[in-house]
């Protein structure tokens, strides 16, 4: 390790690195800082120039956002939807990952199946949302949480399955072969060996599923109205109708960021390995 780090003996290398990282850090932090600042300064000062960088802080904007309860309801909807989407996507992806990689198969069919799984991620949202809307109107699923869960699962399950397939691929085939040689059924091999080994990958996949579902906007915008409105749609409508002032909008934005920031903070390692899995040479 050491020799690698000292391989450029001049001082310019590390110096440039630190400058670069410093600039990039500022670039990442500044918009986040600005949002938090706007949510905390008094509303009358939110837009004034020169800006009020960080003084007169208060949480009155947050109190105003939650005073009506509409936003809280929307957040609750978001939570229900993302929990369900995450559970369904990870469940489907885990089973499929095991089935595709550790049971005997026809290679050509498997390749096509995997491409089909991935292609669900490519569909432009209108091609999914519009037909689903018409179907939902017929079977009375429009503006319901269930309808939104089904639609979001369609767009999330592809990438989650891809991650789980790669996860199971990284488990050596010999481990499961040994279990089957001992007379394990496929289900038992999955439950006692496959699943425990794949669990870290599943946590990473679940983190990504939660992020995608919690942040999803298009389907929620088209398929829900008021009864099943999610956090991002509520915020969008606040912005559009200017029913809240700048500070309150910023406060609502910050509140929407909190769950994903917490999840990423907790499961950062798994998230990173989940995203990297697709590139690992199996």
């Amino acid at each position, binding site marked *: 390790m050491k020799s690698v780090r000292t391989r450029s003996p001049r001082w310019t290398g590390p110096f440039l690195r630190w400058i670069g990282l410093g600039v990039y850090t500022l670039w990442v932090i500044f918009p986040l800082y600005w949002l938090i600042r706007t949510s905390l300064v008094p509303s009358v000062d939110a837009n004034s120039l020169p800006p009020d960088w960080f003084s007169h802080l208060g949480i009155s904007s947050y109190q105003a956002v939650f005073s009506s309860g509409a936003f809280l309801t929307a957040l609750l909807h978001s939570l229900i939807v993302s929990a369900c989407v995450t559970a369904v996507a990870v469940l489907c992806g885990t*089973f499929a990952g095991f089935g595709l990689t550790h049971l005997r198969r026809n290679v050509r069919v498997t390749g096509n199946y995997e491409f089909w799984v991935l292609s669900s991620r490519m569909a432009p949202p209108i091609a999914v949302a519009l037909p689903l809307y018409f179907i939902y109107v017929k079977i009375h699923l429009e503006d319901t949480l269930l309808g939104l869960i089904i639609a979001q699962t369609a767009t999330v399950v592809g990438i989650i399955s891809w991650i789980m397939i790669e996860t199971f691929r990284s488990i050596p085939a010999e481990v499961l072969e040994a279990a089957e040689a001992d007379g394990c059924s496929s289900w038992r091999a999955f439950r006692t060996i496959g699943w425990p080994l794949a669990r870290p990958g599943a946590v990473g996949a679940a983190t990504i599923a939660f992020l995608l579902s919690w942040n999803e906007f298009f389907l929620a915008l088209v398929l829900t109205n008021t009864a099943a409105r999610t*956090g991002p749609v509520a915020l969008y409508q606040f912005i559009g109708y200017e029913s809240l002032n700048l500070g309150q909008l910023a406060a609502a934005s910050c509140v929407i960021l909190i769950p994903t920031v917490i999840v990423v903070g907790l499961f950062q390692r798994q998230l990173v390995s989940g995203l990297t899995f697709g590139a690992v040479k199996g």
Partner: protein
Amino acid sequence: MTSTRNAAASPSRPALRQRGWRKRGSGPAGTDARQGSPTRQPVDYQRRARRGFLLPLTLVLGVVTIAPFLYAVWLSLTDASPLQHGTHFTGIKNYETLVTSSSFWQAALTTIIFTVVAVAVELTLAILVGYALHRLRRGGSALRTLFILPMAAAPIAVMYDWQLIFNALSGVANYLLGKVGLPQPDWLGSAHMALPSLMIIDIWQWTPFILVIIVGGLSSIPDEIYEAAQVDGASALQQMWRITVPLLRPYIMVACLFRVIDALKTFDSIQVLTSGGPGTATTTLNYYSFQQAINNLQFGPGTATALILLVIALLLTKFLLGRLEKSRGQAVAR
């Protein structure tokens, strides 16, 4: 390795399979993975179990992707619209109208420019930052967590944030530019700045995605390779170009694959910040399909545009996956 090479040798077939089987594959493996040790269960039993494991995903994908897809194909062949009575089958008329209209090609061009420039900048930034981050003595993990945050943030909240920052009159971006005496553009309101502004936001939000994958790739490169290169007298630049970039190629390909797919579908920023304008300056194909279908209630042309975009995305993915499999083979061969 055998199966990896086999896959690379047959580019016409989907390239995702076979890797997990290379340990088992003996002889001409990769073409048929059904051979196993004699102690394994009967083939039809395994096939049934496999079907059981694939059932949930097949059901979900079948219901929520195939049905809407077929419906969308049908819609694209009609003049369906709530503005008129009845729906008529019009054949490929919608597609004909699209490919002969200049606004469609304008949107296609905007999509290509946005995707290519945004992903290229994101990739360059991610490689540079990832490299610096990887060689950090301490604090790397804390910085990495910080750098991931934009990706985790809800796009609508992020867009509102940038709306504040990019405001021509009261935004902090122009305030700071004015302080140092630089020109203060109308970021989102002028035709020549709106698309670059959306790119800047996309770069802010999605460089982390590529960065995460690059850092994962960098940590997989053994230090011995660099040590050997140093002994041979390779300069830092040579090491970067001869070792780091080639070994990172599979990771770069995967990152590009997912970013390109998502960039083609960019919607949130356009809807919140510019609504495709000013004029049509930020109308991408995806937003064009939304405008036609939702704003103009022309379901036929809207879905037709979306399906054309889907075909483009599928072809691009096929291509990138082929390249990915190839770069994996090369990385293994090295």
